């Protein structure tokens, strides 16, 4: 069954659909999998940064460590482990960064910086800002990683969805309707909304319904790209929900 919304999926260049299961299966030999891995790392670097930061490193150290860590990941030095584990990208990243901080930091510090290593550009101001936004209490680095992971994932999904609306020339619709993603609150203001969007109440309800359905599709798609098996998606949603509730 093809829903009308579906035609917009997967065409985005800014948010390439990548699959962790493919990467972990293909390993170092595949150039495509390297690109895909790069895309995944670019999407999920903030939890790593927050994790390192919560471990007690300063901002500058954390930036350097994040750079060095992702450089190593992208040079595929850790992918063999990934293939062995066949787990989720999230678990792989957490295990790898833990391992990196424990064992490999010293070695990587002595290696030449820059040179022919892979260039990464992270917006560390954003990372720092997000890190500080977290309630500053007893969260362990691991729990913080999981929360930040959930946030990064949701950001990406919202970004992808907005992109779809932008491509259809409906960015305003998205910006005004997205609040309904989390529930039916604010229905009382629909008159105002209807006027802003020049839509009838019924049309808005349909649009909201579509928005929510598509959002769910995109979220599942996005999660599916980070796990080894399609059947782990629902479990992952529950896990992330639990991670957010731990605060």
């Amino acid at each position, binding site marked *: 069954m093809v829903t009308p919304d579906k035609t917009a999926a997967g065409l985005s260049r800014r948010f390439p659909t990548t699959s962790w299961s*493919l990467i972990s299966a293909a390993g170092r030999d595949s150039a495509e999998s390297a690109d895909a891995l790069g895309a995944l790392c670019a999407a999920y670097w903030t939890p790593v940064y927050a994790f390192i930061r919560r471990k007690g490193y300063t901002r500058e150290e954390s930036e350097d460590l994040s750079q060095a860590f992702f450089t190593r990941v992208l040079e595929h030095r850790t992918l063999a482990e990934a293939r062995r584990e066949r787990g989720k990208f999230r678990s792989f990243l957490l295990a790898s960064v833990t391992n990196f901080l424990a064992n490999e930091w010293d070695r990587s510090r002595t290696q030449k910086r820059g040179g022919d290593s892979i260039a990464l550009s992270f917006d560390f101001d954003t990372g720092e800002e997000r890190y500080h936004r977290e309630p500053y209490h007893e969260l362990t680095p691991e729990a913080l990683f999981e929360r930040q992971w959930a946030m990064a994932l949701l950001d990406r999904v919202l970004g992808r969805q907005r992109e779809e609306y932008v491509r259809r020339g409906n960015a305003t619709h998205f910006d005004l309707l997205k609040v309904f993603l989390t*529930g039916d609150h604010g229905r009382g203001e629909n008159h105002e909304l209807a006027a802003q969007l020049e839509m009838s109440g019924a049309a808005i309800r349909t649009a909201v319904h579509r928005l929510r359905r598509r959002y769910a599709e995109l*979220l599942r798609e996005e999660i599916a790209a980070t796990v080894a098996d399609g059947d782990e998606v629902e479990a992952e949603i*529950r*896990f992330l929900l639990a991670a957010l509730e731990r605060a």
Partner: protein
Amino acid sequence: MTTAKRCPECGGSLMAGSQEGMCARCLLAAVLGDARAAPPAGLPAPGEWVGCYRIVRLLGEGGMGMVYLAEQETPISRRVALKIVKLGMDTREVVARFESERQALALMDHPAIAKVFDAGSTPQGRPYFAMEYVTGISITEYCDKHKLAIRQRLELFSAVCDGVQHAHQKAVIHRDLKPSNILVVEIDGKPAPRIIDFGVAKATAQRLAGNSLFTRLGSIVGTPGYMSPEQAGGAAEVDTRTDVYSLGVVLYELLVGVLPLDFSNTPVDRFPRRLREEEAPRPSAKLRALAEQSGPSARQLHGDLDSIALKALEKEPARRYASPSELAADIGRYLRGEPVEAHPATAGYRAGKYVRRHRIGVAVAAAAALLSLSFAAAQTFQLRRTMNERDRANRERDRARRIAEFMTNMFKVSDPSEARGNSVKAREILDKAAQEIDTGLAQDPELQAQMMQTMGDVYDNLGLYSRELPLLSRAVEIRRRVLGPRNPDTLTSMRGLGRNLMRQARYAEAEKLDRETLDTQRRVLGPEHPDTLKSMNNLATLLVGEGRYAEAEKLDRETLELERRVFGPEHPDTLALLGNLANVLSGQGRYAEAERLYREALDIRRRVLGPEHPRTLGSMNNLAIVLNHQGRYAEAERLHRETLDLERRVLGPEHPDTLRSTANLAMDLHLEGHYAEEEKLVRATLEIQRRVLGAEHPDTAVSTYNLACDAALRGDRDAALSLLREAVDHGLIPEFDRGIDRDLDLKSLHGDPRFPALVAHAKERAAALGKPK
């Protein structure tokens, strides 16, 4: 620090502005369709710990309690299924009873038995069991889903018996065998049973005194239908034969589709008595009594299988099979066509058995598979006209009867008085059916077309393309007439016909048909419909066959993108397309690109389909070819040999794929300079190709061409020229025709006056046959 805003839905603080002012928790919860997602009171939520297990998610709810997927991290990291027993049971007693059997359970080590690791109590005081996490589905569901034939069902069931037998040898009785406790997983593409919950029933069984049994029914033991009479009657001790009875019920259900006795409307207090006194009807009789036919025919069950099932279901334990292995042994005898023990051993019976065994031989299994295929076809038949329920039922019944009659007739292949060999092959049955279907089911053209399609598929799987063609042509014709030219089934038949024409290298006809099919499908079904995508793939494959690589590449990339989106990246169709795209790249000489795609497809297939699946083998063959193209002959040879070994075993020595790999191995050998070995291999292959594929098949022509090259290299010009001529006149593809004068292997012919004439003839033929590149 800013004051945290609160989510209007859940009241939680909005922790990250990054979600554009929205509550991250509610965003996730909304997707689950359950904003609160609160677990029932007293049950663990995902992320919580139970003993040393962390709950991942709820897998399901059974009569006995809830089953969770959980993760264990120490001492080993693994996933387990955690069964948490409902309240109302004495946790200490359950755990104590489990402990008493723990040693015996630990001794069990059998592929058909899922291990039970541990038992304990949750923080809320409920008993739990941790066991091996098995991702299969129940045996009955599996058999129906995959439309397994009787033989396959019996084989699978025998494996279950083996597992139960192993447990009995370790003094463990299951006590609660039923389909939902017998899961089936696929290992290397083959079904394998896993019995779960060993030791659980015993630990959770409540003391059998007075009416306590009745409180158990439906809540702990589950469906009473699988319980032995002695167990239901509250016997103080049951023995291994109680499992034999339950196995008998499962066998019955696998053969007939329903339980031997229906207790659904029986009040709980009358159940033990009914179970004790009421005899199960013979499976064949039960099947006949059921209105709708599915799976096996009553005829197949009549006799031995009836006897086997009823012997396992004897009320008196002493009259049953003494053990699961005896039950399995009798099934084995049935499968081999030997007299079964369950049957009264009269002289007439034994003689009849002997005759049948020798007349039909091994054909029975294949024919049974064909039969069940036909039933499946009939069952999936969709009635397009509206009619009331009774008409519908009557119609379905008539249909089933017609198929049964038609297929039964097919078994009367030879006159018993006629002395001819001792076996009737499934092929003969199929051939006869193909001949007679035109008249045999004439009164029901829809059904007739469906059967033709089904038989066509069987021929296709056997690689007998020329026999498939008339069936598919007729099916298209009938469906166009009866269902109309735009009907999805008509279009599917058209695609099948196009594929068949292509396989026989009748490219022009195939292309015309493919384009017509595709255009109609795009209009009628839509551009992303799986059928439409399959047709795009078909057309691209055809273009490759004709050497039109650029067109094929464009179409393949378009289709691949759609399939990745619509089916997902690991779907068999997506992978097939990946392989096709690689073929196109390879055809254009872009070998490194092609190699990468082949490896990607091969890795996924090995993982998803298993190392012996025909499609996995296809990937191996393709990868080996592209290695050869890159001059990596030794690597190619090694991989081709590996592929060929598997293909000979899995597909048989005469299968077209096997032949193709043989020809490819010959090419490796040739390029490595091992001419003698190569020529021997090509001769042997050519002989089979002529017989199986026919003299006009492109693959046959290529082998002939290769032999010509060998002859030319030896300096035997006469032989070389005559073989070349044969290849050109019998199916050589235009590309080869055009390249004859440039082929270095044929250099020794260049001085011969006959050679230019042959070259001209070949180019002429190529111009007539092939399209310009």
